[in-house]
């Protein structure tokens, strides 16, 4: 799962569904909390995170994509 929606905060405005470049939210219904139908197509671009007026979305970075750093 890439984008994770906080169901408490989400007001089902549909902006994320409208703008997602890769359409991971395909199949979401108007006025319902969006569904992440194609999580493996998330580019982790942060568009939905940035544009969400409710601040209800955050990205879970997959284990395969976590930046390797020195502790």
């Amino acid at each position, binding site marked *: 799962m890439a984008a994770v929606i906080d169901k408490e905060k989400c007001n089902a405005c549909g902006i994320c569904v409208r703008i997602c470049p890769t359409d991971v939210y395909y199949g979401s219904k108007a006025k319902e909390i969006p569904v992440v139908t194609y999580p*493996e*197509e998330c*580019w982790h671009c942060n568009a939905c995170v940035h544009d969400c007026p409710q601040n209800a979305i955050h*990205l879970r970075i997959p284990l*395969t994509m976590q*930046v*390797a750093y020195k502790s």
Partner: protein
Amino acid sequence: MKDIKLNIEQIEADVLCIGGGPAGLCAAIRASEKGANVVVADKSNTLRSGDAGMGNDHFMCHIPDVQGERPGFFSKIGKMSQAVTETFWENAYDLVKRWDSWGIPMKYEGKYEFAGHSMPGQPDFFLHFSGQNTKVKLTKQAKKTGVRIINRVMILDLIHDNGTIAGAIGFDVRESKLLVFKTKAVILATGKCMRLFPQNTGSLFNTSTSPINTGDGRAMAYRAGCELSDMELNDRWSGPKYFARNGRGSWMGVFKDPNGIQIGSGKEMTGHFYPQLHENYQKSGRGPVYMDLSDISDKEYEDMKYWLVHEANTPILDFFKEEGVDPKEHPFEFMTYGLFTPGGINYNEKCETPLAGLYAAGDEFMSFYIAGAAVFGSIAGESAASFAAKTKTSDEKHTQTLVVKTKEFLETVLNRTDGATWQEANSAIQQVMADYCGLVRSETMLTAGLEHLRRLKKKLPQVLMAQNTHELMRCVEVLNLFDIGEITFVAAQERKESRQHHHRVDFPFTNPMLNEQRLVVKNKKGQPVPEWRMKA
């Protein structure tokens, strides 16, 4: 049994822009300003689609009052023609002013600031701009200018009649609708081609620039009869490991080895021009190579973060934040990403292609970065509008046959219940490209690989399967990738020398006789055929 049917809808306009990035939108705005009736078709939504979707922080240009002398660097190395290069430098400042007037903040703290991304010994030529919302502003301006934007449309083929463009055919990726665009001119602005070679393990979509840029414009143009240029000269980038993301120039640190010893002087742009550094260090056991920010000042660090936001790098900053780790204190690894395809439609200074009424702009060939997209987008729009003004709508007979055939094919893929997903097919083409036409090329490997690729390609129409129009879009992308892959093999076979990342072990030397030539591939009766051209 499924029984999905596509309803046909026809859309008429003077000019169709395929792709709503900076090139497509600037094309649409200019064409509309010139009086054309314009429609933009974007696979996603122009507000956030493509490489520029979440921003870009550097706009190459020449502002004499600020920079003095015009930077010479790019006019010397560009693969574009001299005329294209000249045209770029002449027009870029104009675009800066236009963008600024549309609400894109091209000035920083009240003035033009040139900084970063530049070459040693050259004047700074990248204008630092706060471009996170560039696409939002361009979309707004396009609508204001009267452009019609249709989002979520996958265009899959051009309609043409004896070398003259008559429109394009596509489908809605959210609803079961086949869309037939009847237009006098078409502008291709679909961006890069990223998913042909494997980029990273773990995911087809972990790419350094947008993963949905799959060379659709190149593939359509090729099928319609345009030649493609420099397809064998694939390139590579580097960036954070394992979170593939471009923007190397915005990380202001230096590279260090595991013992904290700096690699290079830290001042040169080797990070851009020697992306294999990281892979070489890894493969030779000397790695990893770290991006080390520990020596920059706090002010520089804050500046860097500001620009990283506008360079679309917030997801990486957020990762570190969630991890509770400050990247200034924790050097992080860089890696070399996979090959991609800068070659493509070698448009001229008017953005013309060999097909009448067909124009190309932006990353359809190489790249002048976002500034090049803006400049040539605008020029393409102007060319298309003036072509449309003197052209009649083409006749419909040819279109009908294509529509029927396309509808039938798409519905077959949609209604198939056993077969290959687009992911399977995409993985298969990446496998063939990496194994036979990757970093090591030879006649025997290329021959074997091309045979295997063609065998798979022939099977695709019989096995591809999509559950809905979203997956159908991905299937069409993969079909485009197979065309581009085949062309890449043919070009790699023909270039019997080594040059840049095209490494022929059977022809290890660079042949200086080819310095002034470029290689194109043409579609001759469905077969890709290579030809040499003198550089313009």
